[in-house]
């Protein structure tokens, strides 16, 4: 009999190639200010921040079973946090972005305690209602500009080009960071706990998986990510209005991106973001029909191809660019 050595393995050839290509892409993108027009940089800022938002929604819904339709709360809180820390308290822009994300995470604590009383579809609407509460509170505070909003005045302290480059690099860090953090989290115990909970909450609990604490932690991570992305988005846009900053469309975009790319995979939101922007560029002339089409695609993908575009690729090829699971390999 041959001796068979088994080795627990995570990385695969496609994942190593993927890592190489990914690193190269990040380096090229990081040098964006050297080769891209300002208008391209602005588009890329949206791409990176939407990728971060989508990855956070994916972590919530795809891994923790927390289907939130209220993540726009954190985009809005991040935006208003930025205004508050930069304009009212006079913190530097970069520190304000970070402080806004921390503030959003703190607000997520009571939010989660309330929303976690609901499950499934009612959790979805419940988070939406809470986001509406934050929007209405902000709208009713005249110091925050009420319904017409405010402009980030601190932006004028930095010259235009510097601010664009700074925002661009920050958006890249947030977008890539969301992917890397999700990957690292899922490789840890948390990833195993989430998989167990996804398969069966009851059996996971009986095996000693702290179900509540695990979901709570994921919710806070997603709140941090979305607040951070929200602050960066409005560092670019400058004008903050409650209707737009707390719009449910933010979550609708996250959902479309994740569903089309593949929910419950790290690759999915990356592919979804690329597809989403490609569609937006080609179909933006069609107005509301474009959203009808997006909605129809999301419905169709959910019913017919549950795991989205990346699911189709992975099923055919067995590729995994972000190897979260452990594989046994034989070595002769």
């Amino acid at each position, binding site marked *: 009999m041959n001796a068979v050595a088994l080795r627990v393995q995570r990385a695969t050839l496609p994942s190593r190639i993927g890592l190489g290509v990914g690193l190269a892409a990040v380096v090229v993108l990081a040098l964006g200010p050297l080769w891209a027009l300002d208008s391209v940089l602005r588009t890329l800022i949206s791409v990176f921040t939407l990728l971060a938002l989508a990855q956070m929604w994916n972590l919530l819904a795809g891994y923790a*079973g927390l289907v939130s339709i209220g993540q726009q709360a954190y985009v809005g809180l991040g935006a208003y946090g930025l205004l508050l820390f930069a304009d009212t308290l006079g913190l530097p822009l970069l520190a304000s972005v970070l402080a806004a994300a921390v503030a959003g995470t703190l607000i997520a604590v009571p939010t989660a305690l309330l929303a976690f009383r609901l*499950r499934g579809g*009612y959790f979805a609407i419940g988070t*939406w209602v809470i986001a509406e509460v934050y929007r*209405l509170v902000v709208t009713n505070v005249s110091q925050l500009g009420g319904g017409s909003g405010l402009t980030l005045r601190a932006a004028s302290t930095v010259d235009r080009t510097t601010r664009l480059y700074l925002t661009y690099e920050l958006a890249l860090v947030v977008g890539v960071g969301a992917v890397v953090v999700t990957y690292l989290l899922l490789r840890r115990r948390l990833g195993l706990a989430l998989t167990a909970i996804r398969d069966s909450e009851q059996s996971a609990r009986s095996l000693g998986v702290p179900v509540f604490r695990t979901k709570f932690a994921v919710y806070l991570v997603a709140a941090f990510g979305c607040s951070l992305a929200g602050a960066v988005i409005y560092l670019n846009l400058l004008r903050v209005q409650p209707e737009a900053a707390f719009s449910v469309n933010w979550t609708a975009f996250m*959902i479309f991106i994740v569903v089309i790319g593949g929910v419950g995979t790290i690759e999915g939101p990356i592919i979804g973001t690329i597809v989403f922007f490609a569609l937006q560029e080609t179909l933006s002339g069609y107005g509301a029909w474009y*959203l*009808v089409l997006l909605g129809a695609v999301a419905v169709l993908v*959910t019913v017919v191809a549950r795991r989205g575009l990346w699911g189709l690729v992975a099923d055919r090829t067995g590729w995994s660019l972000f190897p979260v699971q452990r594989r046994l390999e034989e070595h002769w």
Partner: protein
Amino acid sequence: MTWVNVVVQGLLLGGLYALFATGLSLMFGVMRLVNLAHGDLSIVAAFVALAIVDAVPVNPLWTLLVVVPLLFGVGYLLQRGLLNFTLRGNDPLPPVLVTFGLSIILQNLLLEVFSADSQGLDAGRIENASIRVSDRLAVGWFPLLTLVTAVGVLVGLQLLLSRTRLGRSFRATSDDPEAAALVGLDHRHVFAMATAIALATVAVAGLFLGVRTTFTPSVGPTRLIFAFEAVIIGGLGSIWGTLAGGLVLGVAQTLGAQLSPGWGVLAGNLVFLAVLAFRPTGLLGREVPA
């Protein structure tokens, strides 16, 4: 007396919310399905009524004869042809995604067909007529009709659930779908009938909304949120809880708006959050939201 008036107007407004909440509560009760397109479907009903009134000069209340059967049929087909496929397994994701996608589709279709303009249904004299109780208290005929209709729909639903074969199959499927299937109930049909009836009530709600106030293609989600708040405030699994929840929400909103015009909806939301925090079973509910 002003405050009495505010509370009375709130109760009347609550009738409309109870009407909206009925369908949501029924669908959740029978199949644990939360329909995020609930509000948008009511707005579709209002726009269909508008199209009919534009073509044939009748009082919009007569269009109920067309719109209610129409949404009943839409509900049956929607459940049978689409939503049933999202209920396989215990995954909460597909029903939320599909009904949310549907909500986006409906809103934007309405936007393309009817534009973003505010519309209203003109029901004639009944809209502004009122019963004067005293100098500062008047009860509008139409809001009163709405409340009476809501109570009527809820009584009808109660009778349907407790007295009819269909109601029995709803309760059986809700309690234990597998056991219900063993005794020969086809859950696909039972679910489709539940959605059909739910959407019939949604049609009534949408029409009454259209007469009471103006509407645009994008107001559906707000209706969904109010219906949901009424259900949770009243308590899941309780028909009279749905009525109570609607009334409490209506009063909270009118009281809030009386304090400051911008606080109406917010006050309703805060009552909802307070119920969630301190009494998660709702006022009359038997189960914790699950």
